[in-house]
Each structure stands twice: as structure tokens, then as C-alpha cells.
């Protein structure tokens, strides 16, 4: 029972971190141009 009190918040927190990361990525436009990102890898300057 003690384990539960500790583990459930941890699980929820990790899930929320993932969700937050995804929403941040979405907001900062990282899903706007997936094809371009694949090709920009080939550019060595910048």
C-alpha cells in the first residue's frame, strides 16, 4: 500500500512529462514541416 502511494504519483508525473513535451513540440512548430526536417540533416552549415 505504501508502494502505491509512491508509485502512482511517479507514473502520473512521467506521463504528464511526456504529454507536456509533446504539446511543447507541437506549439513550437516541430510538426509543421516533418519532411523538411528530414532533409535539413543533410545541410552541414547553420
Amino acid at each position, binding site marked *: 500500500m505504501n508502494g502505491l502511494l509512491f508509485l502512482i504519483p511517479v507514473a*502520473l508525473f512521467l506521463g504528464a512529462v511526456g*504529454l507536456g513535451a509533446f*504539446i511543447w513540440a*507541437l506549439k513550437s512548430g516541430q510538426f509543421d*514541416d516533418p*519532411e*523538411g526536417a528530414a*532533409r*535539413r540533416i543533410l*545541410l552541414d552549415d547553420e
Partner: protein
Amino acid sequence: MSCCAAGTIVGESAPTPTPARPETGMRHSDFVVPGIHCAGCIRTIEQGLARVPGVVSARVNFSTRRVAVDHDAAVIDAEGVGAALVALGYEARGFDPAQAGDMGEDVRGRDLLRALAVAGFAAGNVMLLSVSVWSGADEATRALFHWISAMIALPALVFAGRPFFRSAVTALRHGRLNMDVPIALAVILAGAMSLHATITDRGDAYFDAAMSLLFFLLIGRVLDHMMRARARSAVTQLMSLWATDATVLEADGSSRRVKVQDLVPGMAVRVAAGERVPADGRVASGQSEIDAQLVTGESTPGAVAAGDVVHAGTVNLLAPLVLTVTAVGNDTFLAEVIRLMEAAESGRARFVRIADRAARIYAPAVHLIALLAFAGWMFTTGGDWHAALTVAVATLIITCPCALGLAVPAVHVVASGILFRSGILLKDGTALERLAEADRVAFDKTGTLTRGQPVVTWMSAAGDEELSAIAGLARQSRHPLAVAVAKLLDERDVVAAPVEHVSELPGRGLEGWWRGRCVRLGKPGFAGEEVDIPAAGSALVFAVDGQVAVRFALEDRVRPDAAEAVGRLAALEPVILSGDRAEAVGATAQRIGVAHWQSGLSPADKVAAISGASAGGHRVLMVGDGINDAPALAAAHVSMAPASASDVGRTAADLVFLGERLDAVPFALDVARRARRLVLQNFALAIGYNIVAVPLAVMGEASPLVAAIAMSTSSILVTFNALRLRWMMRRGAGADEAADDGVTAVPPHARLAA
């Protein structure tokens, strides 16, 4: 387009970095640049624009082929940025995202993704807690887990369910039932029932089922949205290729660029050699030849002189012409074609997507079953509304079209991805479904079955010196026949000899001086003798001082794989509908083995031919490229056009294919048919699942565990079945299946990235 050439620097002054000054007219402009196709293009454009004074930042979006530029309006305006893009070697067109209705859609896509993320997070965590409940968590733990689930699920249901609630409310307000009504009802009722169960600590909680229902349905929505966005970006890409400017000559001799829609009858317009005629008009001065291929389908250019009428969309080949505009807007030939197109298009609007057809039957059925289950339980339990409502909610959740919602979008996204990679752009979401239904096919000739450019098919023996003189002459002309000869000589590495005082005589040929002798390259009657002209081609003669030295035979070659591609469509009884001369059409038909052909057709005749077949109960696939084909493309059940097609042709067509090879047509048909088969299989899977699960739910045996397992497995099954399309196309066609359809799958060699 000279893409991937080293970055050309625009602006003669040294590049000076302009600091961002938000207070002095910072502007944001968007451009559609269809020519972007490699990493080099991204660098050329971004670095090239960064050097332009006044440009603060430039960012290429490769997926949508767009460039977003922030610039200081005080230093450079949007048109200046556009001109800089053109100077970099890219066709560019400014566009207003708000006007294109584009920004709103992008926001919608993001909303859906955000809802999907929240639903995924909530579904995962609630499921985690539910697993412990199912595996026998005892009373206090069970209550705790229900409470935590409720706190995660309720806000998530409200947030992630919005797209469905909104759509359901709209449907109900119009007195209709759509798929979203039972979904919204199930989600709301399941949430309320489970909350009640949590508070009273009595009965099962369905938070996990409601949450994963939303999660799976949102995946379907996101896929469907991606598919539409892909189609829309293809449309904007193609639209941006329209020619929009014309050079107007003023009375005082000066000239200015004017947008085509601002032209007025009576204006004098100059059309440079190689330029497209912007409006219908009469030639005021100049002599040239006009290529009317895209307008009438005629393969040989015609000579024009002062007083002749030329149509918008034709290409001026040889020398500058000055036209007096005679008609604009509604009076032009083009407007006539567009009117025919709109009249023909109405039939297509009646097409209903498979998913919507299914929803029409499915939505009322779901409600009826749930209502009957509720009434039945009320009756048998003698008015235990709690038990009856639980069963009704379980029935709604179980019957909810998770698998149905995924069945179509998953297949279509996979199919359109396969087509896109093979250089076929899908412009309309329903085109795949319509393409699969085609049972007749009609082709245009010029530019569709043929390349629309003549090539040299035969040449008489010639000495090296003569060849270099011919190259010197031919390179100075834009006439398609001269270009074909020049190309042949280039391939043989002939070095062009200097030919002086070259003049071009419209309708006849080229004349010049080479080593003090008069040389001519042109029609047999002009350059020298009369020879037999091959039925479907043209002849060119090279003469020195009136003595024939070399002869050429040229022909508008059929596409290299035309016979093969058309042969693969034999089951659809191919027909050629052409506006060209009978001899030319007949020869092409014979070469590629098409038995039925019609020549000399006007745009209206083509529409009549298509509607004739439609009236006979057939669904016609029309493949064409010209302005004259556009009404037929719109009238047909489904249509395809090569990327080299006229603007109107590309707009009218549902699918546009890039590259030289015509096997894009049987390939697309094959993908569409396989996609339809998979969609139907998916429906069968979904219905089969319902046949098993619904009785369980109605009997009251659908515990949250059963609901969760049934829903997830059917959704995953349907998705994997959709992915099978990719695997099928990679492996090539199964010979047995292909024989049924009369088509086989050979991926076109035209690759987008080429």
C-alpha cells in the same frame, strides 16, 4: 527550373544584416514555391533571401513547399521578396493564408493533435489503473483507483471530446444524425455513469473504455485530416503555377506589367517569344507561330500574322507579337471552357463517400439497439433504471464505430502516401474511391498519350560540317521542330558552327549565312524539294544554296510506355478523344493498339462523349491535359492529368502525375482498387466484431474488461489491415488478383525527388 544551381546572389550591394525593428513596419509574407525539391533548394532559398536587404528571416517549409519571410516593409515589400525568389531561380507566388482558408485548417489540425495527445495520456494512465481493478484490487484500493481515474478521465473527456461534441451539436441542430451523435452520447453517458459508480462505490466504472474510445477515434480523425491537408497542399501547389502577369504597351511606347485580370479590351499587349498569350486577342503587329496544343489539342503549330485571332493559353513560339485584346473575363474562350466545366461538374458533387454511406445506416441502428436494450432491461428488471442505463451505455460504447472510424482514413492515408512517393498527387479525398469505381477509360492524345514534343525519328546521311551548320541554325529557334533537331545534335556532341544573320520565317523555317553561303532549315517546299511527308509527322530539310543536303523526319512521339500502359487498361475499353486531325489520331491509335478513337472534337464534343458513356451506366476515367480537355475532365467520374498539363486541366483533374511515364494511370487505378478492397475488408471486420460484441453488451455481459479488449483488438486489426496495402504494393501485384482487374501493379519510375 534551374534548381540546385549554386545560389545566385540577389542585390548588387553588399549584404547588410538588418536588425529586427518591430516598430517600423515589420511584415510577414508567405510564398508558394512549387520548385522546392531537395535540401539544396532549402539552403539556396534561405541563404539567398537572407542576403537581400530588408529581409529579416526566411524559412522554407518543405512539406508544404512554402517560404515564410519576415521583412521590413520600409526597405522591401512582398513583391520585392517575390522578385528575389524568382531571381534565385524559383517560380514563386505570394499568397494570403487567411484568404486561401488555409490557416484555419492548420489550427484545426493542431487542435486534433493536441486532443489526441491528451486522450492518449489519459487512456494510458486510466488503463493502467483499470488493469489493477480487473486483477482484483480490494475495496479501499479499488475506490482510490476509481477516484484517480475519474480525476484524470473527466477533464480529458471534456477536452479531447470537443471535436465530436461540436460536430454532434451541428448535426442535431440541422435535424440530422451523424456518427458523432452516438459517440458524444456514449462518452457523456459513460462519464456520468462511471462518476455515479465511483461516488456511490457501486457498479463498474467505464472510464477506460470511454477514454480509449476517444483515443482510437481521434487517430482516425487525425489521419483523415492529414489526407485532406495533403490534397489541399497539392491544390495550392498547382494553383500557384498560373501565369498572372501581362506586358501592356502604353500609347507613349512605354510598357508596364499588369495582372491578367486587370486587362481591358482594346489594350495593346506584347507577348514575347516563348510566352503564353494572356488573353484572347487579334494580332496587331508581328509574325510568329502559335502552339495551340494545350488549347485545341492540335499537335502542329500554326503561323499567325497581323489580323489573326489568338486564344489565351496558347504559346507564342518565334517572334514577339503585339496583340489588341478583344475579350477578357467572361467573353474569352477560356471562360467558355470554364462554364462547360462547371456545368459538367455538378454530377460529381452527388458522390457520397463510403464512410458517410455507412454512417447513414449505422448511426440510427446504434441508437435503436441501445434504446431497445434500455427498454428491455427496464421491462425485465421491473424498472431498475441504473442497471438498464449501464447496459445501454455499454451497448453504445461497444457499437461505437472505433474500427469504422479508422477503416477508411487509415487505408486512404497509406494509399495516398504510396501514390505521392510514385509522383502522383491526389487532389481530392474522394478521388480514390471514385477511381476504384472506374470501368471505362478515355485518353486525350496530344500531351497525354504523346509527349507533346516532336522528336527526330529519321535522318539522312550527313557530313560533320553540315551537321554543325544545322546545329548553328537550329539552336537559334524556339520552334519545337528546330528544338528537336538541336536536341538530337546535342546528343551526338555536334559543335555548332557560327551561322550569321539568322532570320525566322513563320510557317516556313530558318534562314542564315554560313561561310558566305545561304543555308536554310525548314519545310521541304521552303528549303528545297517536295518530299513525301509521313502521315502523322513532319519533315524538315536542310539546304545549302538551294541544294538539299540533309533530310529529317519528325514525329510527336508517344510516351515510351504508352502502348504497355494502355494495354494494361484493356479491360476498361480505352478510347481516344482528340481535337487533333484524323490522320494524326489514327496513326497514334494504331501504334498503341487502341481500336476506338474520335478526332477533331471540340471541348463540348468531348463532354458529350463522356456523358454518353455515363448515361450508359459506365463510370469513366478521363486522362487529359489540355484546356480543351478540362470540361471532359470535370464531367468524367474521375480524372487524371500529367503535371505538364494546362492550368485549367490540372485544376479540373482529381489526380496529377509527374514524369514521363503513362503507367502512372494503371498504377493509380491498381492502388485505388486495392485500397477499396481493404476498406471493404475493414468494414467486414468491424461489422463482424459488432455481431459478436453487441449481443454480449445487450445481455449485460460487457464488463469494462470485455469492452476494452474488444475495442482495442478491432481497432488494431483494422489498422494493420490498412498497412497491408503498403506491403502489397512493395511486393508487386499478386498475378491472380491482377488478372481479375485487368491491371497490374508496376510502380512508375517517375519519382518525386528525381
